[in-house]
Each structure stands twice: as structure tokens, then as C-alpha cells.
């Protein structure tokens, strides 16, 4: 493999995993609540800001960096609980258009709040020192932070897979996702499962914010640009399917990376072409889930 191809591969995988960290919570909540949470990216952004505020721009070590990301996860999880109680709970039985628009309003609110609290200036956070260097892989310089993001993405996917398919909690989750009414008659505390899912999904967004904040210039709009890729991945993967979303994220990351390397004058276009092809060719996604209309 040429060094350029290796570069494209690693960067693509890292972008893909970054998309996945945002998309995983999105698709999870969709699978359970059948609500496409447009505000998901905004909570990711808030997670990044909280990590920046708590940890500062120069993390001391990878452990403090991870610790800060977990603090961000916990904080956003709490916000998730509040959001669920105040907003999402009331959207469960309404037309999906209303849910889309309400979560959109939530997104605007969060972005406004971020501007209000942190201002509109760009902020920067450095990767922790252990991963802030490059290694040579097959003749190509790859940043260790890139490998770190790939590792975190794969770990989160593995954890979700194990939780969903190997544990009792996952079985309950899938039962509720397939048929909440039936699950309720079987004695499952459905509202509780829904609430826990929302909190977990939000916490994941906060964690992603903490992990990915060194990836970009931090501004109140960072969520909007990120969540768009996550949406595309969720749609291509099949709404509600974590596996499909994972594969779609890898695909989109690789396409984006190849596009940026080989067709840099038209960077960022190929991904939309891929999306358009998928929407027309497989409108229900790679792994069609129930409730995807």
C-alpha cells in the first residue's frame, strides 16, 4: 500500500470514528424513542465546551484528559435527564414533524446559550501530551491522536454491541425498541428504559465532545457541522441500527478522507454524492430498523 493510501485509510477511520461517537447516541435514541434528535450535535458541542472549561486548553496527561471527558459525559447526562423530563417526554406521542422541530428549537437554544456563556470566539484544546506526536506507519506519518480516536471509537462500538446483544439490559432495550406496548405488558418499566436510554445517549454525546475537542476549533457551531455527518451516517446505516451506523460512519469517513486527499479542490462533496446514492438506492438504510418511515 502506498504511503498516501495509508494516510487516507487512517484519517478516514479517525473521521469515521469521530462521526460514530456522535452518531451512536443519535441512532440509539431514535431506535428507542423514534425521535430524531436534531439537538444531539448541540449537546456534543456543550460537552466539548464543558471539557474545555474544566480541563483547560492544555491537558496534563491522557488520564486527566479522559477524566475530563467523563466529567463532560456526566454533565451532559444530567442535562439529558432535564431535557427528557422537560421536553422529550412530551414529544413521545406526537407527529414526528413536531418532534423534529422541537428538538431543532432545542438545538438553537443550546447554541444561543453557548454563545451567551462562552462567546463567539474560537477556542482551542491541545491533545494530551502522550498522543500529541506522530508515528510512521508504512512510510506515512500518522498522528497518535488519530489512532487514539480510532481506538476510542472501536471501544465504544464494542461496548455498545456487548451491552445490546449480550446483556439483560440490552435485551430489555431491544424489546422496548421493537414494541414498547408489548414490552410494557411483559412487566418492563418502559418509561424508565426510555429515560435511561436518553441519559446514556446524551452522556455519550458529552463524552464525544470531550474526546473530540482537540480535533477542531471550538465554536458554538461545531455541533451543527458534526451532527450533519452523524445524520447522514444514521440514515445510510438504517435508523436505529448501531451496527449499520458504525459501518456507514467508516464508509463516510473513508470517502471524506479520500476526497480531501485526492480531490482537495472539491473537498467535502463526495460524501453528499454517496448519501444521495444511498438514499435513492437503499432508502431504508443498510440495516433497516422498525419505525423508520
Amino acid at each position, binding site marked *: 500500500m502506498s504511503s498516501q493510501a495509508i494516510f487516507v485509510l487512517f484519517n478516514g477511520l479517525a473521521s469515521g470514528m469521530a462521526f460514530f461517537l456522535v452518531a451512536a447516541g443519535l441512532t440509539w435514541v431514535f431506535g428507542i424513542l423514534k425521535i*430524531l434528535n436534531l439537538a444531539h450535535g448541540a449537546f456534543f458541542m456543550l460537552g466539548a465546551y464543558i471539557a474545555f472549561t474544566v480541563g483547560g486548553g492544555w491537558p496534563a496527561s491522557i488520564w486527566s484528559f479522559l477524566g475530563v471527558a467523563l466529567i463532560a459525559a456526566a454533565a451532559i447526562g444530567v442535562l439529558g435527564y432535564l431535557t427528557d423530563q422537560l*421536553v422529550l417526554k*412530551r*414529544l413521545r406521542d*406526537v407527529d*414526528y*414533524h*413536531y418532534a*423534529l*422541530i*422541537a428538538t*431543532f*428549537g*432545542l*438545538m*438553537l*437554544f*443550546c*447554541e*444561543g*446559550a*453557548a*454563545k*451567551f*456563556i462562552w*462567546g*463567539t470566539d474560537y477556542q482551542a484544546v491541545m491533545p494530551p501530551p502522550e498522543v500529541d506526536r506522530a508515528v510512521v506507519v508504512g512510510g506515512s506519518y500518522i498522528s497518535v491522536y488519530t489512532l487514539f480516536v480510532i481506538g476510542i471509537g472501536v471501544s465504544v462500538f464494542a461496548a455498545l454491541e456487548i451491552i445490546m446483544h449480550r446483556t439483560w439490559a440490552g435485551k430489555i432495550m431491544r424489546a422496548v425498541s421493537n414494541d414498547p406496548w408489548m414490552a410494557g405488558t411483559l412487566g418492563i418499566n418502559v418509561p424508565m428504559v426510555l429515560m435511561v436510554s436518553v441519559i446514556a445517549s446524551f452522556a455519550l454525546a458529552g463524552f464525544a465532545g470531550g474526546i473530540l475537542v482537540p480535533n477542531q476549533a471550538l465554536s*458554538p457551531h461545531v455541533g*451543527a457541522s458534526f451532527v*450533519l455527518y452523524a*445524520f*447522514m451516517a444514521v*440514515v445510510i446505516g438504517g*435508523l436505529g441500527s448501531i451496527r449499520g451506523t458504525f459501518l456507514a460512519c467508516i464508509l463516510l469517513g473513508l470517502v471524506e478522507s479520500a476526497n480531501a486527499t485526492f480531490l482537495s*479542490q*472539491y*473537498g*467535502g*462533496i463526495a460524501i*453528499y*454524492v454517496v*448519501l*444521495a446514492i444511498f*438514499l*435513492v438506492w437503499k*432508502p431504508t438504510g443498510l440495516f433497516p430498523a422498525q419505525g*423508520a*418511515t
Partner: protein
Amino acid sequence: MDQHSSTLMQGRPAFSSPMLKAAVLALLFILLLSAPAMLNAGLLFWVGMTMIQAVFALSWNLLFGFTGLASFGHAGFYAIGAYFTGAALRYDFPLPFLGILALAGIFGALVALAIGVVALKRLTGIFLAVLTVALTEAMAKIIGFSPALGEQDGLGNIPRPIVGFGVFNLDLTHSNDYYRFLLVAVALMVAALWWVVHSRIGRSFRAVREDAERARFIGINVTRVRVLSFMISGGTAALAGALSAPWTRIVTLDQVNWLASTQPILNSLLGGFTSFWGPVVGAAVYTAINYWTRTFAGLSEMLVGGILVLVILIAPTGIVGLLGKLTRRIRKNGDRT
């Protein structure tokens, strides 16, 4: 006035009398017409933008409120009109201004037709939402790579046109003159949209929104109705964009991103999507909020976002719907006494 009482009227008894409504509209038109004499240039600019946003919102709501389809990438259509008109004026296309406007509208409608033919048959709901967002973003990227369209900096220095009517010319280079032209154009477009919504076409739109399956089984070609609505909506949005280019005199990528697409959604929801006039009311209220909070970064988003969530949770029919409920309640109390 008309022996046929339309359902639309029932939704908003706030202005139940057609005479009263006509009087309010006439008064509004006269007020807007005399605005250049009363307001400074800065405020006049806001008023002009509000009128354009009102038409833009009406175009979106034709799709959502009256056909039941949600486009989350409507800024794409607006940008088609704005960029086309901006480029045509800036590079002196050998076309009369009215021809440019017409072409902009036709482009918008054709793009809507293309999307509709490929997508609307299978794609509704969330997929349509994501597709429209993605296409708009893709368009923004393409514009960002086109030197002729100003790349990231936008297309600036757009001259205001002189409209030739054969025997005489209408010089619109002064902002007050263009404002009056804008007002007349907006009024005509609102009238056209009003006609669409209240005509036989509009009734078939509403039938599809209410129950597509039932509509099919009274012989309505649902896909065709949806595509038609999408085309009218896309064409109108492009026209709104086309009218905006000589008004703002600069067209930038800020008008293409997906946040721009949410402007008509906000206005429609705020004002009330079940009513024809809701988006107009919403656009005015939104401008007012934005104007009063313009010095605090983030405050307007918080207010608008918060209001939007509250509207959905408490009063999904928006301001006009609330007014309607209020007048109905007052009237009922009046009947009792």
C-alpha cells in the same frame, strides 16, 4: 361573501370577517408603502428583509402546513434565486430584470421537480428532511468552490436594476425605489400563494396532507400532488431569494447553510402553520425579537429556540392559532351572557 364556508377560515376566527381582514391587509399595505418616509435606511432594510422572509416562510409552509411535507433544506432554493439574480446583475446578463426573476423562479421549480421525481415517491418524513439538508449543504460546498460566485466571501457589489417596460424605465437603483418594487412584488406573490392554497389545487394538497391513503382512493395522484407542491414551494423560495439579492446587495454562504433553512420553519411555527397568514405574523415577530436582542450574542437564538420548543409543547398552532382560541373563548363567553 361566499356561500361556501372554507375550513381554512374555521381555523382562525381571529380575523373571521373577510371585510375586516381585507381592511387590515389594505392598512398594512399602505403602512408598508409609506415606510420609506417614516423609517431610516437601517430600519427600512429590516422591514424589507422581513417581507422577503415572510414570502420565504409562506413557501415553506405551503409544503409543510398544506401538503404535509417538511423540507429542512429550503435555503437551497432561496440561494438558487439569490445567487442567480446576484450573478445576473453583477455580470450584466443581457436579460431584463423581470426575465431574471422569472428564470430564478423557474430554476427553483425545476430543481424541486428533479428532487421530487427522484425522491418524493419513496422519501417522506425523516428521509426527505435529511436529503434536503444534505443537498443544500452540497450546494453550499459547490458555491464555495466557484470563483465566479465569490467562493467563501460571497458575491458582493450587486447593482440594483433598472426595469424596462418598453415605453418607460423604472429606475430601482435607489433603495427607496427598490423597496417599493419589492413591496409590490411580495404582495403579488402572497396573493398568488393565497390563490393556490384556496383553490382546487390547494384543496387537493390538503387532502394529501390529511390522509395520503384516503386521497389516493378518491383518485388523487398523491405523488404528482406532492411534486407539484414542492415545485411551487421551491419556485417561490427561489423568487424570494431573487428579490433579496438586489436588496442586500451581497449574497453569501450564510444564506445557504442549514441554519438558514430553519428560518422559514421558525417563522411558520412561531406564527402558526395551520393558518395561511401564520408565517407572515411569525416573520414579523421574529424580526422584532431579533431587532431588540441584536446587541446580545446568543440571546436571540435562546429566545427563538426556547419559544419554538414552548410553541410545540404548549401551542402547536402558533400565535395565530392562540389568537383564534382566545377569540373563540371570548365569543363563547359573550354568547352565554
